[in-house]
């Protein structure tokens, strides 16, 4: 499948109909998810704040998912030298950073009533914060190098190094968490969650994923157009 999409023109034809379609699917899923979010019974302990979980957990999941996509695009870019893979990486990072930022903000708002503070160095929140720093590092490196091809390759190398380090960071933060034992608010996740909550969570997660997929295609399309425009401008000047 990847080889087929590697050629820019075929990707543009494919994404012309795929992006809007996936976008519509995303809207439907998120709408249903939100509807359920506000109709499921509140948590006996957390009260209504548990509803924030339905926008926090998908965002935190997307933060990781986008970085995996970023790593995949970087690998394709480095190994197979697809210019589209570089465009995919460049397009994916801001979206991933957005979801990561969302995960941090909603997580802090969700925990606020219980912790009494706006931020607690909880294992999961800390690793999401480090992930946000990795995204910012990727984008900073991409912006710092003038030559676009070199910038894309350097950023791809960084993304792969980050991808290899991600599980290590996750493990080290969890290990560090056991050393310091702060309160963890995320006991709600996992099988102990009442069945009624599973539906909105799944709908929102898939909704976010579809949203990301559609926006990613849109941004890759704009990257392809930007490169074409640069080429034309160069020719006009040349």
């Amino acid at each position, binding site marked *: 499948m990847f080889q087929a999409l590697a050629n820019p023109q075929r990707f543009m034809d494919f994404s012309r109909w795929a992006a809007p379609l996936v976008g519509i699917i995303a809207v439907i899923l998120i709408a249903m998810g939100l509807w359920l979010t506000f109709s499921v019974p509140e948590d006996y302990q957390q009260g209504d704040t548990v509803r924030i979980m339905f926008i926090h957990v998908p965002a935190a999941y997307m933060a990781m998912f986008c970085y995996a996509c970023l790593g995949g695009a970087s690998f394709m870019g480095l190994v197979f030298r697809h210019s589209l893979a570089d465009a995919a990486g460049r397009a994916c990072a801001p979206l991933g950073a957005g979801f990561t930022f969302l995960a941090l903000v909603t997580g802090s708002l969700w925990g606020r009533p219980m912790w009494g503070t706006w931020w607690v160095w909880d294992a999961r929140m800390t690793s999401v914060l480090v992930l946000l720093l990795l995204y910012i590092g990727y984008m900073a490196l991409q912006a710092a190098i003038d030559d*676009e*091809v070199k910038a894309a390759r350097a950023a791809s190398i960084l993304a792969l190094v980050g991808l290899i380090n991600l599980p290590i960071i996750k493990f080290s933060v969890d290990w560090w968490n056991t050393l310091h034992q702060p309160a963890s608010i995320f006991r709600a996740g996992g099988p102990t969650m009442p069945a009624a909550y599973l539906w909105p969570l799944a709908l929102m997660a898939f909704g976010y994923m579809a949203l990301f997929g559609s926006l990613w295609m849109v941004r890759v399309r704009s990257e392809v157009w930007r490169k074409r425009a640069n080429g034309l401008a*160069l020719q006009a000047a040349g």
Partner: protein
Amino acid sequence: MQNLAIIRGERLLFQGLDLSVSAGEAVALTGANGSGKTSLLRALAGLIRPHAGDVRFEGPQGKLEPEDARSQGVHLLGHQDGFKATRTAWEELLFQVQWTGGTEASARQASARLDLDRLAGLEVRKLSAGQRRRLALARLVASPRSLWLLDEPMAPLDTARRAVFGDLMAQHLAGGGMIIAAVHDPLPIAARACDLSSAMGPSL
């Protein structure tokens, strides 16, 4: 090299370039600035990846792997000579010679040959451009590598030094070596001209 094409920053420098150099031969690359002379030399040295076409090396026993050929058989002398300003001429020459396969003895010999001995103790930043270029040439002489890739080697040299350099090049060719040099004014040795600006074959 066959059907070589190089793109730098989305600009096609040249394409469809076919050129083969055999032992004892010299090629002078000419062409306007920005026509890709330096990029071609760097592509031959394996630093730049050509957009199309390939570079092949053949040794006495037949085809050589590009990596081996480049790590043992290629000297690249660019605009910058890679010397650290705060280290002494001798320290730098010794490192560069040992790094490219020469020995301390061959370094001493080359330094004497290019009468650099009295500069040995000086820090590189105290040397003139011509002296630094002779120091770089000493590396070429001290470490026996068959292919010399030279980027405007004559620029900082005065006429007397050019003659000395001409002899060195002639000797290198006589010993079965090869030279590809990007130049503006003609080389002091017989060399086949290859104009890059005209090497614009059918558009890609």
